[in-house]
């Protein structure tokens, strides 16, 4: 059982602040690190895995700093986003090299055991450069797990992996979390994180935006006000009718339509068609104007 702690950790590169005063604590079980691209997830991962010094603050594993402390890697397995450039090795040779670097007492047996766990026994005798994306991801995980670490850090492990392989990987990570390991993975896809992690940490623009169990985060994200753009046969009449609705918070008229801000998404979706019919207005177009994940994140930060 290990706990990874960031204590007001910041990291800047010249004038650019990549991670801004983040404090969080990651314990046993699967935790998802969620954030849009460029939010600083990779920088956070690098700091947590001892491959980047925090500009200020502390990053510790069970109380020990991880920067310039090679002994930490006895407890940590790291699955970097980087591609494997050891294409000339077979899967088995690669995992075995990792076992040897850890000086495991029985490296050969550990290699076979972990190939089994990662479901990589069959392709293990092939060279890495013949592997599919999903297989490379699995062999990277096998290599990171060969010394039975209590902490597993994975940077964007599902990127480019096909859906079936993704299910496989998720099952594997879930199992590892259930065994009491501290598993942290980063992703920019909400659904991915939601399906796997019990606990979610959200980072946006280098800041720690939210933290908690996925239900709470999901609620935060769906209960926020949503903006819609509507085009209809009579915008002004529709606007007047909409304003009377309880779910509508604001309506504004544009030259070619209207913008509606909605508080309760569900009841608005149900009542809109009836409302239009009742006032004899034809709806031409209804589109969410800020449904991107970035805007969800922006809302969380502004809150």
């Amino acid at each position: 059982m290990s706990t990874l702690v960031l204590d007001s950790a910041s990291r800047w590169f010249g004038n650019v602040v990549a991670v801004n005063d983040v404090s969080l604590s990651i314990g046993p079980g699967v935790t998802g690190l969620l954030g849009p691209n460029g939010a600083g997830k990779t920088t956070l991962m690098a700091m947590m895995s001892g491959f980047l010094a925090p500009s200020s603050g502390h990053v510790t594993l069970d109380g020990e700093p991880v920067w310039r402390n090679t002994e930490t890697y006895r407890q940590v397995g790291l699955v970097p986003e980087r591609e494997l450039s050891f294409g000339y090795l077979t899967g088995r040779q690669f995992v075995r090299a990792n076992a040897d670097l850890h000086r495991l007492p029985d490296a050969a047996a550990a290699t076979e055991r972990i190939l089994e766990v990662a479901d990589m026994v069959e392709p293990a005798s092939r060279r890495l450069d013949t592997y599919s994306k999903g297989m490379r991801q699995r062999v990277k995980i096998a290599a990171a797990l060969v010394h039975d670490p209590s902490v597993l850090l994975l940077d964007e492990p599902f990127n480019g992996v096909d859906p079936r392989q993704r299910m496989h990987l998720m099952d594997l990570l879930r199992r590892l979390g259930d065994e009491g390991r501290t598993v942290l993975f980063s992703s920019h896809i909400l659904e991915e994180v939601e399906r796997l992690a019990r606990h979610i940490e959200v980072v946006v623009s280098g800041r720690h935006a939210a933290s908690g169990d996925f239900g709470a985060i999901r609620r935060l994200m769906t209960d926020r006000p949503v903006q819609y753009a509507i085009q209809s046969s009579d915008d002004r009449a529709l606007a007047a009718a909409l304003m009377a609705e309880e779910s509508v918070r604001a309506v504004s008229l544009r030259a070619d339509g209207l913008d509606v801000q909605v508080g309760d998404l569900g009841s608005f979706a149900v009542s809109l068609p009836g409302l239009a019919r009742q006032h004899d207005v034809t709806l031409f177009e209804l589109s969410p104007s800020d449904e991107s994940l970035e805007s969800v994140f922006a809302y969380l930060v502004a809150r």
Partner: protein
Amino acid sequence: MMNATIAKLALQALLGRRRFYVLLAFPVLLIGLVALVTALTDGDAAYGVLPNLGYPLVLPLVAILAASSVLGPEVDDGSIVYLLSKPVNRYGVAASKWVVALGATLVAGALPILVAALITGDSTRALALFVASTVAGTAYAALFLAISAVTRHAVIASLMFVLIWESLLGNLFSGIAWLSIGQWGLRVGHAISAELPDPANLPYAVIASLVVTVVGVWFAGDRLRSFSLRGED
């Protein structure tokens, strides 16, 4: 200190890349050239190829290729994290990679120089040149490894050191011999055969070569301890 797994992977990285054939081409061309000149001319003309081309150029070029192949690509593409996310001593990683680079420098640099020198006759002189090449190759491998650990442009930086500092400026100003790995090696070789030049004093040459080697490997190890991954964001 040495790590057999790291050394094995470094050797595989060296042999597995196309650069390896370039590395092999140097000794083959050098020996071929010396053999050709020996066959076509009388007297000692062929030997001249070695102090003018083989020793000051082929040897450091081989060392540059070897040192940058065992470390450069892994640092460049960041895949060295796979080796460094392990509880292995960073100085041991540097030392292991240095040993592989040194081995390649001796096999593809010093040894061919010995063979070529033997073709021209005079085995004492050949031995002296071989010792000089071994001393210089040892320090070169460490220096170029250290350079590979700090900059992505290690090959260019190393080439500048050899071509501009040691060759061009070294020929213009004799004082540069005190700060030239090639000249230190020659001074050590001079102790065996007086046919090699005597550019500096012997204890200084020996100590300076040792210092560059030890500091170079240590420095590379220290840079690896602080190796940082920079994300795209």
